[in-house]
């Protein structure tokens, strides 16, 4: 049994370890080690295409995680008031939303957005005053943010819900008993106590969006996020530069996930 689990970990982490190892390769070939160097990291960070993609990824991740955290928290708090079969239905739908494969979400979002844009664009053109060029809605940063926010909102709801149900109902009642209005209770009791869960949800959402390739591939339009850049570069051959970028993305994600875990644990202990 021990050997078995050892093998599982070996299979899981060997490729990742190799990528990290080769990112420090001094030579320019991905497959043979020729001494140790950090130059590919410098090369990657000097590449304007990489920096552009990184900027887009950051923007999308930050915006979608923020939207998901706010809407997800509100949804979780709202759901708390619902009981009975309706509650069970909502719960099921949210869990399913998290488990739907990315490719399905990607295609579904693409089709939905294209359909909506096709409906709205003629209207915009018709309503736009004479002379100016009417704006047209199309795929891009906006659709990326929307698609990621939609998916990660479900994550936030699940995390915040877990924390909410562990809070004593009586804390809210105690606050109301001490003359706090419902909004006052939300602001002074519910929100501070949910803060760790919300922050953890934000970090997970950020990581998800930052790493996501599948959904982004469908809805990015002409925009390039970091995973999309990596994908398109790989078609021209794996270089140590790509390995370096991959290692950096992985390192950053790992750090964020660990922080999220720590926050959640700390929150639970209180």
């Amino acid at each position, binding site marked *: 049994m021990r050997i078995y689990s050892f093998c599982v970990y070996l299979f899981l982490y060997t490729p990742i370890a190799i990528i990290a190892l080769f990112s420090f390769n001094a030579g320019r070939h991905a497959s043979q080690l020729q001494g140790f160097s950090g130059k590919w990291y410098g090369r990657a960070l000097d590449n304007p295409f990489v920096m552009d993609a990184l900027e887009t990824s950051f923007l999308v991740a930050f915006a979608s995680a923020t939207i998901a955290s706010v809407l997800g928290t509100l949804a979780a708090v709202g759901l708390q008031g619902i009981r009975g079969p309706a509650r069970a239905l909502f719960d099921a739908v949210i869990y399913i939303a998290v488990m739907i494969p990315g490719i399905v979400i990607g295609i579904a979002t693409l089709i939905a957005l294209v359909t909506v844009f096709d409906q709205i664009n003629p209207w915009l053109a018709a309503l736009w005053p004479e002379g100016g060029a009417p704006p047209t809605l199309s795929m891009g940063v906006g659709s990326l943010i929307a698609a990621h926010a939609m998916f990660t909102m479900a994550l936030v709801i699940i995390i915040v819900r877990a924390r909410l149900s562990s809070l*004593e109902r009586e804390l809210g*009642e*105690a606050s109301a008993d*001490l003359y*706090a*209005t419902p909004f006052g209770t939300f602001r002074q009791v519910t929100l501070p106590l949910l803060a760790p869960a919300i922050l953890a949800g934000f970090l997970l959402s950020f990581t998800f969006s930052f790493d996501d390739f599948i959904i982004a591939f469908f809805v990015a339009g002409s925009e390039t996020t970091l995973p999309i850049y990596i994908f398109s570069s790989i078609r021209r051959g794996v270089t140590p530069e790509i390995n370096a970028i991959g290692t950096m993305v992985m390192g950053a994600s790992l750090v964020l996930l660990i922080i999220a875990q720590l926050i959640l644990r700390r929150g639970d202990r*209180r």
Partner: protein
Amino acid sequence: MDSQASQAEYDGDFGSGAIRPVAELRGVSKSFGEVLAAQDLTLRIEAGEFLSFLGPSGCGKTTALRMLAGFETPTSGEVLIDGERVNDLAPYRRPVNMVFQSYALFPHLSVADNVSYGLRQRRPRIERRTIQDKVTRALETVRLTGFEKRRIWEMSGGQQQRVALARAIVNEPKLLLLDEPLAALDRKLRKEMQIELQDLQRQLGITFVLVTHDQEEALSLSDRICVMRAGRIVQIGTPQDLYDNPQSRYVADFVGVSNFFDGAVFIDAGGRARLRLAGGLEFEGRAVGDLAAEGEACLSIRPEQIRLSREPLEGGLEVVVQNRIFLGEHTEYLVRHAVLGPVIALAPRQSEIGASGFVQGERAWIDWPDGAALIMRRI
């Protein structure tokens, strides 16, 4: 209102109930789906009194309290606070405060911030200095000076209990509701806190409503006790009144210890009641509560009213001593009568039997003074 009536109201300031009650329940019922948690509760809570709801688990004590606090809306009937109907008034608008069984202290706030929470919600805002002074005084009252900056989880159970009290009394509520506030404490600490609670109530003059299923707690703390069973109020009275004049077996059993003998009651035209038991035994007693003139009933006699004697007693009952428990001030005897079965008798230390003591298996006689026996409903 004519002047005479208002004069009477004024004069009644220290009397019994002529002044307006702090809170009132009028025929209040509450059902949760199929469950009738409270039925037709009618009760006046007088200013400055210490009232307890006493009853076994699930009898609706918490529900009654939560309707006063505003967390539950009555299904029917009226809740009044300070003479105003508050059925639909949200909890945060009611001039009452509650101490929760779980304390429900805010874990993300310090002790001082917990205590000042209620004051900080007030509009127009209360000045910072005033809030600080009040918090300091409240913590002084519950003997927690110097704990202001502590975190809640750094406090012991007893200390948390006192923070919860301070958080409520700092608001100077018209009515302080306490839901089994001492249930989570160990025995010794509970005794201490009981005394503190009573002192606090006298010192502050705030009306206290306490929920408990501990009869000793209710008896030692309350001015009045409201005994409940299955969602209904069974009897309301002072501890002494409930002990001396229980209206039903349920109350006699719940408040103190008593011997009960089942039989058939006959009440004659003069109002004198007799209970006929199996084996031809018959006892006279004082009929209490709404007892039918004929039918099933039971006789209740407190252990300390039973006299135990070595010599045959005129009209007494012959028994055999079965067990003896030394209780310090008293000695408790368990004796057995051929028809009545086991009977508990309490002998004070000074009396000669207490001094010499009966031994197991010894023959003895018991009787009780006229008027000590009560005849009451069996439930």
